[in-house]
């Protein structure tokens, strides 16, 4: 049967092109544009949004035609409405993705293409990226007003949108890799937007380098996808569809698939902030808040999850998700859920709370993929994008108009609900969605992940998910309490409205310290920051907030199963070909994803757990049920808090353990182990440990270990003195040695030969 395609599906290449053009325009005419750079970006993103929505509607039409078995006689829009109204059991007729590809280059028989592969997953992602990018572009116009690199900001934002959309529509893994690196670059540029302060540029570098660490694995994985296809069909290819088919064909050895999956998983760990490479994401909050909302909450960080979903059969077969009880992916996701949620408890910076929350939620998605809940994980990606962007933009609104550009909840916020009612309500609804309160968006998606985990072999991860849900509810309640309730603690604004670097990284720049560099077209900013009461943000900020709030409420209803029997997300966006789904790919050796029904019992439990989290936090913060500062009095709580405040010592491990050990001589490393690790163990494990450690320090370390290191140093020094004579700086003598070596090796080989 012929399935209708349509303009928007066929010309998806326009979608990344438009923001790219906008980027070049802003880059080329930035000086002349001034504030108008924003119009350029907003116009481009509006066009993209129209194209994305068109693509969604036409895709739904295509799916409906396939399911109804009729030719494409109805209009796309009519089909959309009809499809919403129809409430029947989901069908899953095969629907091929719309693929258009052209040869990029070919070399010695290997043909590489570039093109677009539009399917349910891609159109869903297009909609998410386009919507949030558009709202962030609008929001930034107010938020970044008067910034000295305003045009630069918009150029980077446009480039980011282009790269992200390019990544989404990519028809092969190589192209996906290009988009992946481009978004990483944009992330680097935008985190370091205010690079004059050392912490900001450090954070940008850290984000870039940490994700690059994962990208090494990704590169290996992408290269291996080529060979996966080669094993299956004889000709190698990077095409996503071919890769998926090959992975499921049963002709590829498990070892190759496993290595490929592990390689790609490293990429996901780096990009999507999974344990143990999650440490860059909180630091990335040094960038402007709209950037955090767009890049570090809604879109770029989910690129890893998107990759996982795009070539899911590789993971499915490589990790044997269908018939195992535990696997790499699920474990990483599960650890991340708990670790992120734990860290969110002890942050004073509102954006860091949200950053750790994002890490935790990304953990849910990866865990969902790992336990076989493909649809649920992607559904969570979908809803999370809206409510987390909502929360981030809410935090930005608070700092913009409420707390004088500080993000410190304890110092500069509190009691803001009276001053900023709109921000308050949108934030509360976003929090509800994040905590998974019925009937907000997060409830549906999180519940579906839990249901699938509990249904299959992965019962242990159901527990992890529930614990995570409890913690999420509790730390978000704490965050709301500190921000919006209690007494307003800001007030002393005069000191940090202008150029006080110590207070909040944003301060100095949003209201340009250096007016000489202000963008022409703004004039000087005179909105009188310095001595004013907190007030509600202007409409350019609140309107995007309300739009996102609306989506945070309703986005989950696509899967409103109890009563209404809606399974639209699954029907529309689940892949219809080459996937381990029942009925679609019936090869005997491929286990399929179970189709899990909504479970009212589990839903009740998870909501109850979330409410328990809220309630506990309420008792703790409002009622002070455990005393003024429990952590200060209770030793166990104190130790736990210290552990969390130090981020499980992971950062310390990376900078001091890995980097310093590589940099410094071995003796230094030994010293560090004694001084730092043993010190910390001392502090955290009490007196018995103290005695033991002292004993170790005094007798073993000082006499035994030091002796060994001193001996090593002496030997090294002596042999170095001898070898030094060879290093006389005569280049040609070096060449002589090299050549003698070469000749000797050649001779040796020749003799063997």
């Amino acid at each position, binding site marked *: 049967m012929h399935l209708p395609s349509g303009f928007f599906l066929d010309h998806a290449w326009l979608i990344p092109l438009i923001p790219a053009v906008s980027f070049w325009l802003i880059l080329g005419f930035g000086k002349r544009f001034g504030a108008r750079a924003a119009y350029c970006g907003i116009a481009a993103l509006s066009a993209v949004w129209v194209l994305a929505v068109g693509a969604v509607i036409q895709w739904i039409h295509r799916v409906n035609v396939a399911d109804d078995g009729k030719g494409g006689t109805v209009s796309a829009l009519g089909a959309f409405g009809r499809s919403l109204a129809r409430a029947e059991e989901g069908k899953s007729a095969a629907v091929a993705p719309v693929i258009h590809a052209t040869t990029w280059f070919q070399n010695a028989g290997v043909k590489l293409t570039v093109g677009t592969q539009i399917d349910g997953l891609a159109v869903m992602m297009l909609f998410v990226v386009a919507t949030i990018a558009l709202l962030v572009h609008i929001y930034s116009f107010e938020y970044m007003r008067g910034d000295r690199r305003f045009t630069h900001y918009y150029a980077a934002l446009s480039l980011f949108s282009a790269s992200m959309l390019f990544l989404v529509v990519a028809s092969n893994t190589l192209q996906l890799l290009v988009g992946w690196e481009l978004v990483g670059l944009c992330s680097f540029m935008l985190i370091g937007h205010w690079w004059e302060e050392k912490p900001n540029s450090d954070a940008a570098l850290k984000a870039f380098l940490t994700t690059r660490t994962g990208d090494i694995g990704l590169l290996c994985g992408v290269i291996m996808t080529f060979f996966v296809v080669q094993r299956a069909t004889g000709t190698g290819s990077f095409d996503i569809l071919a890769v998926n088919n090959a992975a499921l064909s049963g002709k590829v050895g498990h070892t190759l698939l496993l290595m490929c999956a592990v390689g790609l998983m490293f990429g996901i760990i780096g990009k999507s902030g999974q344990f143990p490479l999650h440490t860059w994401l909180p630091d990335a909050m040094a960038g402007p808040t709209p950037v955090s909302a767009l890049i570090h909450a809604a879109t770029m960080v989910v690129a890893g999850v998107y990759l996982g979903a795009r070539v899911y059969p590789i993971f499915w077969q490589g990790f044997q998700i269908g018939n195992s009880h535990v696997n790499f992916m699920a474990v990483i996701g599960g650890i991340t859920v708990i670790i992120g949620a734990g860290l969110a408890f002890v942050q004073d910076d509102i954006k860091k709370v949200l950053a750790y929350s994002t890490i935790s939620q990304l953990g849910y998605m990866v865990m969902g993929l790992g336990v076989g809940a493909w649809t649920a994980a992607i559904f969570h990606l979908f809803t999370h994008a809206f409510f987390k962007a909502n929360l981030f933009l809410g935090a930005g609104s608070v700092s913009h108009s409420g707390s004088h550009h500080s993000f410190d909840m304890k110092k500069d916020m509190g009691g803001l609900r009276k001053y900023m009612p709109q921000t308050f309500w949108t934030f509360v609804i976003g929090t509800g969605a994040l905590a998974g309160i019925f009937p907000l968006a997060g409830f549906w998606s999180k519940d579906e992940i839990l249901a699938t985990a509990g249904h299959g072999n992965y019962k242990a991860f159901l527990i992890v998910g529930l614990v995570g849900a409890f913690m999420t509810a509790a730390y978000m309640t704490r965050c709301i309490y500190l921000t919006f309730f209690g007494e307003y603690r800001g007030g002393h604004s005069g000191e940090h409205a202008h150029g006080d670097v110590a207070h909040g990284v944003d301060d100095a720049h949003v209201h340009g310290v250096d007016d000489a560099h202000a963008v022409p077209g703004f004039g000087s900013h005179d909105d009188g920051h310095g001595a004013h009461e907190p007030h509600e943000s202007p409409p350019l900020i609140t309107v995007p907030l309300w739009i996102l709030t609306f989506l945070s409420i309703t986005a989950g209803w696509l899967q409103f199963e109890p009563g209404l029997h809606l399974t639209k997300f699954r029907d529309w966006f689940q892949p219809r070909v080459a996937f381990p789904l029942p009925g679609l790919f019936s090869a005997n050796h491929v286990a399929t994803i179970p189709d899990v029904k909504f479970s009212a019992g589990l839903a009740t439990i998870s909501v109850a757990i979330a409410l328990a989290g809220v309630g506990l936090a309420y008792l703790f913060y409002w009622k002070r049920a455990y005393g003024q500062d429990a952590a200060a009095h209770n030793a166990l709580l104190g130790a736990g808090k210290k552990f969390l405040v130090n981020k499980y010592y992971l950062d310390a491990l990376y900078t001091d353990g890995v980097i310093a050990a590589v940099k410094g001589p071995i003796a230094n490393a030994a010293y560090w182990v004694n001084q730092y690790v043993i010190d910390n163990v001392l502090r955290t494990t009490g007196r018995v440990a103290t005695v033991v450690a002292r004993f170790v320090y005094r007798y073993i370390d000082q006499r035994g270990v030091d002796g060994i290191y001193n001996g090593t140093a002496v030997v090294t020094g002596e042999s170095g003195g001898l070898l*030094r004579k*060879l*290093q006389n*700086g*005569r*280049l*040609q003598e070096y*060449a002589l040695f090299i*050549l003698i070596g070469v000749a000797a090796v050649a001779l040796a080989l020749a003799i063997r030969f």
Partner: protein
Amino acid sequence: MALNQFLLLAAFLFAVGAYGVITRRHTVLVLASVELMLTAVNLNLVAFGAFNNDPVGQVFALFVLTIAAAEVGVGLAIVLLIYRNLRSSDPDDVDVLKG
């Protein structure tokens, strides 16, 4: 014609070039010796191309030629830079690697 006559000539040129790289006391002449070695490589490539009746040998010789040209360009620029800084073109005077 035997294939070997070309290959042996190339081997000789290569060895002479290697000798020159080590012994010459002027950086320009060191580079000239490198050119000798590269020519030897080219001779090999072209000879095998002719032996197999395949133009690919020639193509690779072209690539080597191009890269040799790039190498000479950068190399001589470095020679000039060294000369400007040290007032010498003797490789022995460039001894900051001394341990």
